[in-house]
């Protein structure tokens, strides 16, 4: 398979270097890129016009990214490595750098800044007043004209972000500065107003709502463009490798529950549903295919008929499913709440894999919340009710494992049988209260097993007021569960 375009040959070597760097960065970001996939990518780019940035992106994605949850990470690395290439993004000499760059020039910049008005298409707008600029932005949003929006994004970054070379601040700072000047919330209201005026005020509320959704979507697209533009300029300033390193973020399955940002939390919530579905299928299958039951005589005889009466293919009955009962005891105080929420989510999504699921939450008091989950199909709502209605505060609302366990033991320990698996979720930071670890010991004797899931990194265990060691001596297993990957592997082993 050779390519017909000789042009590729000439530009091969630098492209190869770039691509190698790109793949190394993908691996650094945690994507599993194998050698064959690497070679496939090299093959693939021979067949596409190299100046077409979109085609390049999809060709690389098709050969290198085989898991959709890695797409975001791929996109960022791609932007960093190839942001300066591609037709619609092509920059004229000098347009890249801000006016501000001129003033404190440090010579070794690869692109020399040039004066006002000498840039490319983006630069040709620079004579505008801020009012004209706002007007154009408004029109671009109104018509949903994406190339115009891209230009406006570029222009507004140039104008408002005030980027300076070598300044050690992150992209979010510039993003904030740019957005502050654009007042997009105000723009949204104006857009809505105009829509209403145009339809002579007889827009139904339903239509208004749809229009609003649409404008919001466009504004989000604009924000993304602005972000990309800032990133592009930062890459030009700091170099590809350095920038890729700063932008490197954990993959969704590796995001730490305790330190997730709001955006990461939202992504986690989205990721948990497909995960539970996957787990449920896997567990059900495992159970069906697991150990065989006793010989099914009738079935074997019937099957033997096609072998002339020789029972060559013995048939077995399906084994009786042995499903465990689960009791989840979750700490929902401050920092570990997010972790408890995901675990409860997972356990309930898997509830068909257990005979019974009961859940308890505590801070320093303890309350059973099983019914919240049973009354509704919507787990998110149930968790909301847990957080707002459950009676979990006894004295001061600081975690007290000792007391919470005591309440559990007094009220529910009688229900713990040899078929029960007890899951305790928490960091075991007891605020120096009495541990009451004898309860765990007693539960371990009654229950099938007692597992403790701790969302803290192992190195923090037993430091400060953490008394995980005190409890863990009685547990059947104690696991560090800081991210979805670890949670998944635990749930897989549980059922």
């Amino acid at each position, binding site marked *: *398979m050779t390519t017909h375009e000789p042009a590729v040959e000439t530009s091969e070597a630098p492209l190869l270097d770039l691509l190698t760097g790109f793949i190394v960065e993908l691996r650094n970001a945690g994507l*599993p890129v*194998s050698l*064959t*996939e690497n070679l*496939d990518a090299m*093959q*693939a780019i021979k*067949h*596409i016009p190299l100046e077409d940035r*979109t*085609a390049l992106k*999809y*060709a690389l*994605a*098709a*050969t290198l*990214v*085989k898991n*959709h949850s890695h*797409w975001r990470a791929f996109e960022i690395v791609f932007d960093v490595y190839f942001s300066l290439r591609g037709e619609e993004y092509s920059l004229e000499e000098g347009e890249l750098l801000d006016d501000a760059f001129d003033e404190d020039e440090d010579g070794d910049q690869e692109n020399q800044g040039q004066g006002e008005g000498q840039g490319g298409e983006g630069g040709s707008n620079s004579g505008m007043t801020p009012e004209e600029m706002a007007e154009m932005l408004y029109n671009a949003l109104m018509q949903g004209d994406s190339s115009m929006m891209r230009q406006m994004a570029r222009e507004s970054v140039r104008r408002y972000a005030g980027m300076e070379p070598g300044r050690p601040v992150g992209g979010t700072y510039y993003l904030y500065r740019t957005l502050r000047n654009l007042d997009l919330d105000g723009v949204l209201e104006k857009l809505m107003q105009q829509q209403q005026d145009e339809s002579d005020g007889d827009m*139904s*509320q*339903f*239509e*208004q*709502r*749809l229009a*609003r*959704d*649409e404008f919001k*979507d466009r504004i989000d697209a604009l924000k993304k463009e602005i972000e990309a533009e800032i990133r592009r300029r930062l890459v030009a300033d700091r170099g590809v490798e350095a920038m890729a390193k700063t932008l490197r973020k954990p993959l969704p399955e590796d995001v730490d529950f305790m330190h997730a940002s709001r955006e990461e939390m939202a992504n986690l*919530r989205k990721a948990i549903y*497909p995960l539970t*579905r*996957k787990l449920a*299928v*896997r567990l059900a*299958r495992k159970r069906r*295919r697991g150990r065989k039951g006793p010989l099914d005589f009738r079935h074997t005889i019937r099957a033997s008929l096609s072998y002339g009466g020789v029972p060559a293919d013995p048939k077995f009955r399906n084994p009786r499913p042995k499903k465990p009962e689960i009791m989840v005891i979750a700490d929902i105080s401050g920092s570990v709440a997010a972790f408890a929420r995901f675990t409860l989510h997972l356990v309930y999504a898997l509830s068909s894999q257990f005979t019974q699921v009961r859940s308890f939450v505590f801070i320093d008091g303890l309350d059973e919340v099983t019914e919240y989950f049973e009354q*509704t*199909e*919507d787990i*998110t709502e149930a968790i909301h009710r847990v957080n707002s209605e459950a009676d979990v505060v006894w004295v001061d609302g600081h975690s007290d494992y000792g007391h919470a366990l005591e309440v559990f033991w007094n009220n529910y320990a009688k229900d713990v049988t040899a078929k029960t698996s007890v899951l305790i979720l928490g960091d075991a930071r007891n605020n120096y209260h009495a541990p009451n670890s004898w309860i765990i010991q007693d539960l371990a004797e009654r229950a099938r097993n007692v597992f403790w899931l701790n969302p803290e990194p192992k190195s923090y265990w037993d430091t400060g007021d953490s008394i995980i060691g005190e409890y863990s001596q009685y547990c059947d297993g104690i696991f560090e569960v800081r991210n979805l990957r670890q949670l998944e592997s635990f749930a897989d082993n549980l059922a």
Partner: protein
Amino acid sequence: MDHRFSDVQQVRDQLESVHYLADDSIAGIVHLADRLEKPVLIEGPAGTGKTQLAKSVAEMTGARLIRLQCYEGLDEAKALYEWNYKKQLLRIQADRSHETDWNELEEDIFSDEFLLTRPLLEAIRAEDPVVLLIDEVDRVEIETEALLLEILSEYQVSIPELGTVTANQIPLVFLTSNNTRELSEALKRRCLYLHLDYPDMDREKQIVLTRVPDITEHLAAQVARVVRSIRQLELKKHPSVSETIDWARTLVLLGIDHIDAETATDTVNILLKYRTDIEKAVKDMNANADTYSG
């Protein structure tokens, strides 16, 4: 070897001629699959046109579509080939009187004549152009996936008694997956990967326009807008493209040319199939109207 398509644009145009609206990534990957002679693994939510893509590619290239529907318990005999045991038995019995040499007979009963070809082998041996669709590959057990590996990377099937059957021509191969489990690395490595997500609003509108005759542009645009809004909610199951099309058809049949909150509420059960989802969507449609009634 000749390529089926000269460039991405051609793929796009041809797909459009069979009423499949492709975006950059879809057309780009179909083009690459042809050039690199690699199978395409299509993943994505249900009802986004994964299977349809394979069908449309078959239609536009004038190829025969060979389809292997995967299910739990699929095995070699159903996917690759099987010896026609009964016919072999007949052959042996018929021979009793003639007393042919055993070696000869053995060679005879393990020949082409007694081989039942199943979809994978059929695709490999086809003389005419074919498109092979391996549907819902995530339904087979992880061990069964190994069956596919030889055919996906080498385009050949090894039959112990017959030797290796190599493809006369490289077929276009599509695998679809609903992502109910992680496919093995070995399988993914051999494929190009395409994630088919819900289309954006403009594309969905175009899809509705091509798929639903007699629909007005205004209604199609509205349909696309409403569906987009609904997909932003946290639901158990988001409306798929096929459900969007069904909904649009229903609206046309009911003679509705303009959607308001009331018609949307009445017909939303075509888009959503879970009671909780319907409640949520209805609540959302009406609640929002109140909020913005200023």
